[in-house]
């Protein structure tokens, strides 16, 4: 019983930050039709910026709570600026090309960002653990959890609800949906498609960096982070269906639970299981669990 509870709580904690990353990935795919391999790099960028800010804040003697907020804001800001520059300066040159070509373009961006972060922050791991003690410890019966981990869950739910609400219940969201549905038609109705693209990309990047900042206190921030995260968030969005918010949520929970279950029951099978789930979903429902099948032109 305890084991089951542990798996569920661990799984949900894992799912929470993965969901935020996957949300950004799925949003960018939905609007721009780009499967962004560099998404993991933005997660890493967020984590690095956050770690730097926390170290600075601690050195200056700021209270940890302030440092925590500062790190989230700084990460989101830096990443969206970089994301905007990238979209306007580079990606727009490749619009209209095949999806696979765009995938390769983002792969190139991934390579670029990988080395740039190494140039800026070096190759040694950075630790920013101060905010991790911010929320104390919580106990469930006999189980003890770090409060920080549990706080991630409501933050993830809030982010998901906010994005869903923004897309489905606001005018901006309607405009974005119109662009997703038919870019040419929305352009002829006066929608500034370019602006929607830039906005959506920057927002997706922001989500990735936000998740990176959130998890920075939990982990050691080091090179290689981006390729590990992107590979998990790929699995999530493919399981849930590319471009679907609900799908990303279900995918994240599945992957989170699968990871937690494996860690506790069969640690050898961790990555293996996640990709097996992904392959199985692709075999039976290539569009993902939450994506309607679309008709195609012959």
């Amino acid at each position, binding site marked *: 019983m305890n084991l089951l509870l542990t798996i569920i709580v661990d799984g949900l904690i894992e799912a929470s930050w993965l969901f935020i990353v996957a949300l950004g990935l799925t949003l960018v795919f939905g609007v721009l039709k780009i499967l962004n391999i560099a998404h993991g790099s933005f997660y890493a960028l967020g984590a690095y910026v956050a770690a730097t800010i926390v170290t600075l804040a601690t050195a200056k003697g700021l209270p940890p709570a302030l440092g925590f907020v500062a790190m989230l804001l700084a990460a989101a800001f830096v990443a969206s600026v970089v994301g905007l520059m990238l979209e306007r300066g580079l990606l727009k040159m*490749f619009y209209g090309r095949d999806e*696979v070509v765009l995938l390769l373009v983002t*792969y190139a961006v991934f390579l670029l960002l990988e080395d740039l972060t190494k140039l800026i922050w070096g190759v040694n791991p950075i630790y920013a653990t101060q905010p991790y003690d911010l929320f104390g410890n919580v106990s469930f019966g006999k189980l003890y959890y770090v409060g920080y981990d549990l706080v991630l869950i409501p933050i993830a739910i809030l982010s998901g609800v906010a994005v869903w609400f923004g897309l489905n219940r606001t005018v901006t969201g309607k405009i974005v949906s119109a662009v997703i549905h038919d870019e040419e038609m929305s352009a002829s109705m006066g929608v500034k498609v370019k602006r929607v693209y830039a906005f959506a990309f920057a927002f997706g990047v922001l989500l990735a960096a936000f998740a990176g900042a959130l998890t920075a206190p939990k982990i050691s921030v080091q090179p290689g982070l981006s*390729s590990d995260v992107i590979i998990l968030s790929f699995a999530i969005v493919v399981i849930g269906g590319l471009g679907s918010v609900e799908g990303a949520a279900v995918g994240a929970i599945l992957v989170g639970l699968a990871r937690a279950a494996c860690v506790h029951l069969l640690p050898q099978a961790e990555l*293996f299981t996640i990709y097996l789930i992904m392959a199985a979903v692709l075999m039976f429902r*290539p569009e993902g669990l939450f994506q309607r099948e679309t008709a195609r032109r012959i």
Partner: protein
Amino acid sequence: MRRGLHPVVMIGLVIAAALFGRVLPTWTLSLATVAASNALIALGIVVLARTGNVSFGQGLFFAAGGYGVALIANSSGITDAVLQVLIGAICGGLLGLVIGPLIARYTGIFFGMLTLALSMVLYGALLKTSALGGSDGFNVGRPSLFGMVFTDTREADFMLYAVSVVTTGLAGIAATILFRSELGLASLAVRENNLRVEYLGLSANRIVTINFVIAAVFAGASGAFALMAQRHIDPQFAYWTTSGEFVFVAVLAGYQSVAAVFVASMALELVRSFSNLYLPNTWQLVLGVFLLSVILFLPRGIGSLWIRDRHRKNDPPRTAITDGAAP
């Protein structure tokens, strides 16, 4: 491709290239071996890309070939280089035969994702299999050739170079013949529109499967070369960034020409070793810029530098090596 070279001329060129290794300095020799081995796997990706599908998981067959050869070498003592290449190709091909029919139904981005997922399944499994050395992998002995054992490193390097150049060359000749064949032309038709191909009475799935298996055979053989060159294997063989690099070579080459694959692979290895020498911490940066420039300025790959005109007449302008099967 009517004006292409005759296969006999091509075989002559391959032998000349292999013998040329005699005069090359040692550092170029190992570089060229890696380049030839990468060209072989990228050639498989190009073969497959002619059906409109890009595999982001060739690392799966690369690792299957490498591990297959390594395990057989360590258990039965087969060290012959040519045999090892054959074993690698068979391992890759068998796995391709299992996966190919399942995967042939998918197109475009789903095809890419599924191949990536499968290679990561293998990676995840290898990483945790302690019998195979886990994340550290394990070592294998130096390869021999037809009973000859090479103790001199220079001789051993040359042997490996010669075998890899000849194998890759033969694969290139086979691919050229394939491209000109009925199957090769049908593959291009699948890339254009797979449903129409079905209406014409051909099985698009079958065409994709055959190309997939060919790509898997090439990848398995390439895995054998990588193993022989490093004399060590680890799960990194199946990691997605490894597969990404092979796609990189294929994109660099474009899908029109076999020779372009060799040029692209050699170019990549040269860029890599020079940036290793002069910009040791930023070679990925160089690689990224290189890839972006090729996609931007040579959307049809290096091959378009010398075969641009021939295709303009009967081939509508395409944007990439694949340019999606789905409209």
